[in-house]
């Protein structure tokens, strides 16, 4: 193991510990017992077979969104718009899932998947082209396009695509039962979609770290000018990265709705899921394997937080812990360099003083 990786892992361990301590401090200040809080969190994530299933499901969701962020970022585009791409993918696939009722699942599921991929990818393509051709900041366009996409889906689900089914007051028509993903553990969120998630995660990991295309993407992301001089088509790679990212988000939208209890598209199906995964990717500096492993850790925190919430501690605490880890990790490089510099200058001062003594 090289020293740079050791240093990084040490920083990560320190950051996570510090952030959890800050979380404890916030609990203390707001009048909760931190031990009870974190105890509830562990029980909430591991207490029964049911919650373990949900923890695994959440891990998959974080891995997909985290890798989606990483694919785009490592090819030079910061995709903050995954939430909107996910909504469009969900709406498109749910619409098809309802319209294709009666068709063989072997035909219908791939079609729904295709619809989800296309709507996510096309919506991600717009800010990518604006960035590459016109140098328009993608962070702003993608975040604004989130609001636009969610509003559009809300409009469709409450208007033209609203279900006429009796007793159902929100959402689109229900997806054919044969197309939906079956539960793997009764009562948990874990469904057959996890197999898709595993395959997609492995594919993306392979693409990013084991292929020349992935290497080229990383080159582009790190230094687009250098990549261009060495003959790489930086623009094309950046767009490709964004298309893959959008496609992944679109698919996740389908998995959520096809696994969900309602079996239809409802506007509140996601609770800003994309941002959870984006934070994991940022913490792990867009390293695919790291993201997959870290997704499990944050899966525990996220699912456990639901139990914390039932004990009166708002689940936003985990979001605070997550962003604090990012602050630490973003500053660690500069912090360590400063310490090294100070040590070096002190050493120089010491030798100078010694020289003076002689």
């Amino acid at each position, binding site marked *: 193991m090289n020293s740079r990786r050791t240093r990084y892992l040490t920083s990560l361990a320190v950051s996570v510990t510090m952030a959890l301590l800050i979380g404890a401090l*916030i609990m203390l200040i*707001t*009048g909760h017992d931190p031990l009870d809080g974190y105890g509830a969190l562990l029980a909430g994530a591991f207490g029964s077979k049911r919650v373990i299933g949900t923890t695994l499901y959440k891990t998959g969701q974080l891995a997909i969104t985290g890798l989606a962020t990483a694919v785009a970022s490592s090819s030079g585009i*910061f995709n*903050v718009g995954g939430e909107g791409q996910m909504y469009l993918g969900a709406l498109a696939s749910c619409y098809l899932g309802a319209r294709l009722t009666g068709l063989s699942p072997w035909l219908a599921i791939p079609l729904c998947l295709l619809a989800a991929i296309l709507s996510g990818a096309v919506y991600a393509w717009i800010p990518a082209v*604006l960035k590459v051709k*016109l*140098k*328009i*900041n993608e*962070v*702003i*366009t993608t*975040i*604004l*396009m*989130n*609001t*636009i996409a969610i*509003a*559009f889906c*809300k*409009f469709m689900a*409450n*208007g033209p695509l609203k279900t006429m089914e009796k007793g159902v007051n929100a959402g689109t028509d229900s997806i054919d039962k044969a197309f939906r993903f079956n539960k793997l553990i009764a009562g948990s969120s874990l469904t057959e979609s996890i197999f898709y998630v595993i395959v997609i995660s492995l594919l993306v990991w392979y693409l990013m770290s084991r292929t020349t295309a992935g290497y080229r993407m990383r080159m582009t992301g790190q230094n687009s000018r250098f990549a261009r001089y060495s003959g790489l088509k930086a623009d094309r790679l950046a767009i490709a990265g964004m298309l893959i990212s959008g496609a992944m988000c679109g698919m996740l939208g389908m998995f959520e709705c096809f696994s969900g209890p309602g079996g239809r598209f409802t506007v509140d199906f996601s609770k800003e899921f994309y*941002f959870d995964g*984006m*934070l994991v990717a*940022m913490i792990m500096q867009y390293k695919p394997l790291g993201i997959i492993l870290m997704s499990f850790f944050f899966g525990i925190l996220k699912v456990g937080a639901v139990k914390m919430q039932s004990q009166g501690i*708002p689940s*936003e*605490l985990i*979001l*605070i812990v*997550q*962003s*604090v880890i*990012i*602050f630490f990790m*973003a*500053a660690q*490089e*500069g*912090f360590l*360099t*400063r310490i090294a510099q100070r040590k070096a200058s002190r050493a120089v001062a010491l030798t100078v003083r010694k020289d003076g003594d002689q």
Partner: protein
Amino acid sequence: MDWNTIFSVGTLMNTINTATIVILAGLGCLMTAQTGMMNIGIDGMMTAGAFAAVMGSWLFDSWLMGLVFAVATGLVFGLFYGVMVIRYKSDEFIIGVAFNIFAVALTTFLLRSITKASGSFHPEDTARGGSISNLPYISLGMSGGTPVNLSVMIPIALALVAITYILLYRTPLGFWLRASGEHPESLRSVGRSPDSMKYLGSLACGFLCGLSGAYLSLGYMTTFTENMSASRGYVAVACVIFGRSNPLFVCFAAILFGFIEAAGQRMQGIVDPTLTQTFPYIGTILMMVFLAVFNRMQKRKAA
């Protein structure tokens, strides 16, 4: 479509009211942009400011204390941004995005801890009770049966546009501030520290975003609601890019944004309200595309 309802006193007032949020935040953002940083975390700073304003106003039953709380919070976050980006050389985009998520999470957490109810803050839901004191306003008479009121923050915001413009382009301090962004080396060669100018820029950003937040929760609205900035901070960043960090142009872009939002509200009878809400965001993106195409054409003409 009835053009008279779109170009009416009501629309004008709505335009000014909404634009003021973006003007103040945009001024904050351009202070960092001028000193060579791009703070996209202003959305979070506004949210934090809006929450602090309501807390100050509620605890002391005084809007002035609300303003003090908001500005203090803004300054703390501005300093924090400065330390992260200037001292520890963190990636400004990562810090900005994390900042926005952090601010929404923290304010939502605190809101739910204080009131036990979620959504928005109402003093009745707390053990302490009391009330929120809002920013004062100037009454401009009646129009069509509804009173026309102008929040004091609106003239203050316009004055701040002039002040930042004069500060940046007509004073030595402004010259140094701009130099710290464009030519830090030459600034150093005349014996000024670019870093201290950058800190000044991020503190000014925090101050102005604090004001924007206070106006948001105590002027534009009358309480704090979760995630209440509604991405307007990002719109402000877009306005700064559109206005090339010049306070006058940024103010103009913000007013244009305010008009699109206000006109959208007026069209709710014709177009579904869920869709009209998206007009300002679509408008902002189109504005950025327009500017980029325009720049490109000018460059081609020059060459």
